[in-house]
């Protein structure tokens, strides 16, 4: 029993303070306004305060903090991407995640499980090797393994996938982890608040005030705020916010869905992903299987669940784990994924001075939370994007300088 829990038993009053203040009335002016109180927005606020000493910051959240894709993703953290830019970026994020519980003094249940991307076809094996080679080159521990090694890590997995899609091998990614997603948002909120950042929930931005190409303020349902630096970190709502400053992005919105089962005793220690079967699965510390699939094939601005999704996913899950037939799905949900044409995010400055963008995370960007916060904070503080995210700039779509994360998706199936 850790000593830290003692005080809860001995004190008469609950000895824990608020994570963050109950801010209701925004001030007239802030040095920076962050739209979106998800993980990314709160992390940006935290690093603005911590790394750059900019604490006169307001985070404006339409609903409640962490209520968007931060609370809907399947909590996987990894850096086994395909492009060197992607691998470097996500590797930096993994490194920040590893120390984040201590830094925020909140247990994020950051759990290093190891991550297998299963390959069922020759072409998938090729992509795995490609990713492994790039990862190795950048110094990230990923390598191609055979069925035996997969079986060793997960003896319950049917390597033949019920004869439907025999597993030929996998990309093993040692740093692959899961974390408690909500807590990441809460932890950043807590520490940002402690340094002076003000977090406003139920606060919606209705317009952004731009004068001669520069941001001068935002209009909210709680009044006008003047500021000359605004960060948009709103995932699926990016097109709506960008419309306010007359910026076009190539982002399209597709629903992405997930589900969980009833809790069961721990048996699945690794994180498994299968591109061919469109499945990713891990077991939470509560014992639930957390499962997701590929993006819904249609563009729609909705978080409604579909039966199709859960039928397809569970069918494929039983190919992998035939014994799960009577394990029950408790809940399914959906979020809005903001997709870019090259599957890489959009980060950095825009043509409107003082308007910064953090978007295009596709499958929700949970794993990038710390590094996106850190690099966006630097971008805002210096009005200049750090080298690490330069290839993610919005203008790349006009310049035809795409970042090829789509490469993996295209040849992976």
């Amino acid at each position, binding site marked *: *029993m*850790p000593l*830290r*829990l003692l005080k*809860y038993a001995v004190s008469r009053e*609950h000895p*824990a303070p*608020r*994570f963050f203040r*109950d801010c209701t009335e925004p001030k007239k002016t802030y040095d920076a306004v962050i739209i979106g109180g998800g993980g990314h927005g709160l992390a940006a606020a935290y690093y603005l305060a911590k790394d750059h000493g900019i604490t006169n910051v307001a985070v404006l959240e339409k609903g409640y903090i*962490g*209520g968007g894709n931060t*609370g809907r993703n399947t909590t996987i953290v990894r850096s086994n991407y395909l492009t060197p830019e992607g691998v470097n970026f996500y590797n930096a994020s993994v490194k920040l995640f*590893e120390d984040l*519980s*201590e830094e925020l003094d*909140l*247990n*994020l*249940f*950051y759990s290093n499980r190891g991550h297998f991307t299963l390959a069922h076809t*020759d072409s998938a094996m090729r992509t795995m*090797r490609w990713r492994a*080679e790039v990862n190795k*080159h950048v110094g990230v521990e990923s390598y191609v393994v055979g069925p035996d090694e997969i079986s060793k890590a997960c003896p319950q997995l049917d390597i033949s996938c019920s004869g439907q899609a025999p597993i030929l091998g996998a990309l093993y990614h040692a740093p692959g982890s899961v974390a408690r997603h*909500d807590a990441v948002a*809460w932890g950043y909120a807590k520490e940002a608040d402690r340094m002076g950042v003000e977090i406003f*929930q139920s606060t919606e931005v209705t317009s952004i005030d731009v004068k001669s190409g520069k941001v001068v303020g935002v209009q909210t349902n709680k009044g006008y705020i003047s500021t000359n630096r605004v960060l948009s970190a709103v995932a699926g709502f990016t097109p709506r916010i960008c419309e306010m400053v007359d910026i076009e992005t190539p982002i399209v919105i597709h629903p992405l869905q997930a589900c969980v*089962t009833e*809790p069961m*005793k*721990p*048996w699945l220690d690794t994180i498994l992903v299968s591109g061919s079967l469109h499945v990713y699965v891990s077991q939470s*510390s*509560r*014992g639930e299987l957390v499962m997701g699939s590929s993006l819904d094939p249609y563009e729609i601005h909705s978080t*409604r*669940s*579909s*039966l199709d999704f859960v039928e397809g996913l*569970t*069918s494929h*899950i*039983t*190919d992998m784990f*035939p*014994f*799960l*037939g*009577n*394990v029950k*799905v*408790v*809940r*399914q*949900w959906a979020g809005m994924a903001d997709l870019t*044409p090259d599957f890489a995010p959009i980060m950095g400055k825009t043509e409107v001075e003082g308007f910064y963008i953090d978007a295009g995370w596709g499958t929700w960007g949970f794993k990038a939370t710390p590094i996106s916060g850190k690099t966006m904070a630097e971008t805002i503080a210096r009005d200049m994007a750090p080298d690490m995210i330069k290839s993610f700039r919005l203008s790349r779509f006009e310049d035809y300088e795409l970042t*090829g994360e*789509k490469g993996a998706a*295209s040849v992976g199936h």
Partner: protein
Amino acid sequence: MTLRIAEQENEWINRDMPLTFEYEGQQIEAYEGDTISSALWAADIKVLGRSFKYHRARGLLSFANHDVNALMTDGVDTNIRADVIPVTHNMQLTAVNTDGGVIKDKGRYIDKISAFLPVGFYYKTFHKPKWMFPFWEDKIRKAAGLGEVNFNYPRITRAKRYAHCDVLVVGAGASGLSAALEAAEAGSQVILVDENRKIGGSLTYDMATDVNTGSLLKQLTENVLNHANIQVIADAYAGGYYTDHLVPIVEKRGITKVRAGTVIVASGAFEQPPVFRYNDLPGVMLSSAAQRLVNRYSVKPFTKGVLVTANDYGYRAALDLAAAKVEIVAVIDMRQTGAEGDLTEKVKQAGIAVHLGSCIYEVVPSSDKLGVSAVIVCPYNEATAEADLHQQVVLNCDGVAMSAGWAPAAALLYQAGTQMRYDQAVQQFVPNQLPEGVFAAGKVNGIFELEQRLLDGKRAGAEAARYLGKSTADPVAVMAHRGNSPSHPYPIVNHPKGKNFVDFDEDIQVKDFINAAKEGFDNIELMKRFTTVGMGPSQGKHSNMNAIRILARIRDLPVEKIGSTTARPFFHPTPIGHLGGRGFHPHRHTAMHEWHVKEGGVMMEAGVWLRPAYYLPLGINLTSQQAVQQEAMAVRKSAGMIDGSTLGKIEVFGKDAAAFLERFYTGKFASQKVGNSRIAMLLDEAGVIVDDGVAVRLDQDKFYVSTNSSNAATVYREMQRNLQLWGMQVTLVNLTGVMSAMTLAGPSSRSILSELTDLDLLEEAFPQGAYREALVAGVKARVMRVAFVSDLAFEIHVPSSAGLHVWQKIMEAGKTYGLRPFGTDAQRLLRLEMGHHLISHDTDGLTNPFEAHAESLVAMDKAFFIGQRSLKILQKKPVKKKLVTFVLDADFGELPKECNLVIEKGEIAGRVTSISFSEYVNRVIGFAFVLPEQAKAGHRFAIRTDSGRIEMAEVVEHSFLSLNQG
């Protein structure tokens, strides 16, 4: 001791069919029709499980499929819900999540240290120092979870059924039955679904000595079961509501997907517990659970009990229990005002004392802490939720039934997009604005009085019929609720020592909410996530409403301002095997499939198709590598044939056919001569190569276009899509499965083919790129000269019905020439020797024509084609990478693999996309992406192998055939 009582009027058990089973090693007698919980309760076994977090002993709570603390395993299945699953003969059950038996569970120590485990405790510790976390995590993971998964559980593949109906009625209680009858009478086809084994809802257990209930139930049941327009599905639940009235009905045998014209939700309400200290002890249960026990299973909930209530339903339950000769010590009414009508009088006549304005301050546990020995009753202050300890009364009893109110079973309504409002008259969320084609009736609609529920069902049935145009009658009027509210606005009793449980799944007490709010989680969604209220397997069915009430009071806001968390599918946890169904893995076979298998073809998946990768003929001892080399060598030396039926084949015809292809593909087609073929390369909007096929001009306005096997569906879909956009006069016919195709290749191919056709095959008459129609082996065929695997090759397309015939005839004719079939592996090698790249093998999701030596296929001077705008921009920019053909140094040490990197000055310069040893060339040859400056013939570059070795390779001209040293 048995708690089973004499036969009740409408009991669900079959006393003629006794059975025995085992629970925790103990033999139990039961009847067919018992659920596990009713059978155990009848045998006076009350510890049915341990709670998830604190491992507290738990018994019955709802008896309505949310008793998540009574989960069992029979060694095969896990997390069996004892409250609803029927008991069967010889079942051997134990409670899940216990160590050392349910009574002596070693985990029960956690309850003793619960003061150290405040809400969200796991966020506050275990992370410093970092290296200790894996230790704690292991402990936490093992403590969490419910049942163990059985890894030997058989694979379940349950077929799905599909059904359509005019009206789907969810819930066969009074309002649902009435709604179904009304809609059916109006001529609608009705499906009526109920999760109970028998229909009737609360009519089957909530009698309150009203003799008419039984006859009403009988009459409604008969009318419904005998109605030609009504199909009843009992023992099944509506899993969720999905767009356009799609509702999966989950039965034991599998799922029926119902697409309804309209949906009437008459799903009733879940009874909610009042919250007081030790309201979780075995023996304390909801009144409706006690009524179900008595009236359905003829089991006493206790021998001597107390009824605590905050509405009139507790009185009804008291009457039901008294009628079954259960001793009721008192009715404790938390309200000052008491019950309406003659309920109080009836209860008093039954010899039961009524304590108004009182509450149970706490339950006194029995000495073994596994049951109830008494309750402490105090005056209750409704405004402060405090008990007045100055006037304590101790009532000895062995059980408590509790009523505090109801929460609507509105999950389906929420999923359909219903806007709800909080109704003060019933202290409940009720529909405010229903979506089109969705109706609500009965308790879920805030209608509680039986007469009015029947009317409300009639109204909803009529409205549904009218919505469908089956009726024009005006629906009957229903009276809004009057009098005492069925739900108490705040049925909570504060206690300084806590253990007054709100969420029994997750062991959440009142103070947990208060403390969570103190820590800033004072929004219902944040509170849910921080406390985990409603996140257990019962999904908040008995806890969400109290959580909302508590938060409203903490924040001093009206309940409607707090709102509700989102109710997501599924209504009850639903088995993976049911949802997954039989699985659907379609494979396509070509017309020659059986032939390939017979000849030793090793089949590989190619998209949905199965194709021979190579052949290992019976009786011949070959490695796969040898087989591939021999097959390829046959093509080079004599002849080989491959089944190309998987190619996409699309006929494009109509006035604008040529113009359409000009827009769709990069090349020129307007000038193409009839009887000729041209490469058809498709780009996406960004200028990336998507596909390359061949377009043959059959006639002035008729083309026959092939695509790569893997792209057949994509290209056809894109053609259709663009046709819509462009509005051209073109018709598309997808012939992919209709036509078989085979490529006969190699120096002897002409001689072989000439034996089966009159067609002039000589070079001058039938040159490279030409197309002819002729009889081949007596079958009308489309023949073209293509040079993908060999300079001399004929691609022969015939109707699939004749595919095998033609294939066999050619194989026969070729026998004397040494003709062999070859598979996709040899094809890959052969095209590599020819210097042809494969789209999406040698190219990736960003490769444009300038990078893949495909400029010659792009007619930039055309007015428009897909991707042209992007190419115009790309044209002005320096190329970043180039696809080249290479030969590996002969003295290499480790054979590189595809996707090994090309390294230049320590950095990534590109990658190997294809690599193979060619026996014909006698060298390892391949394709690679390299930097533009490395792309000249003769340039040497470095490849890093799996083990980190550097192997050198040299860029060569396109075709390797010139390197043939044989």
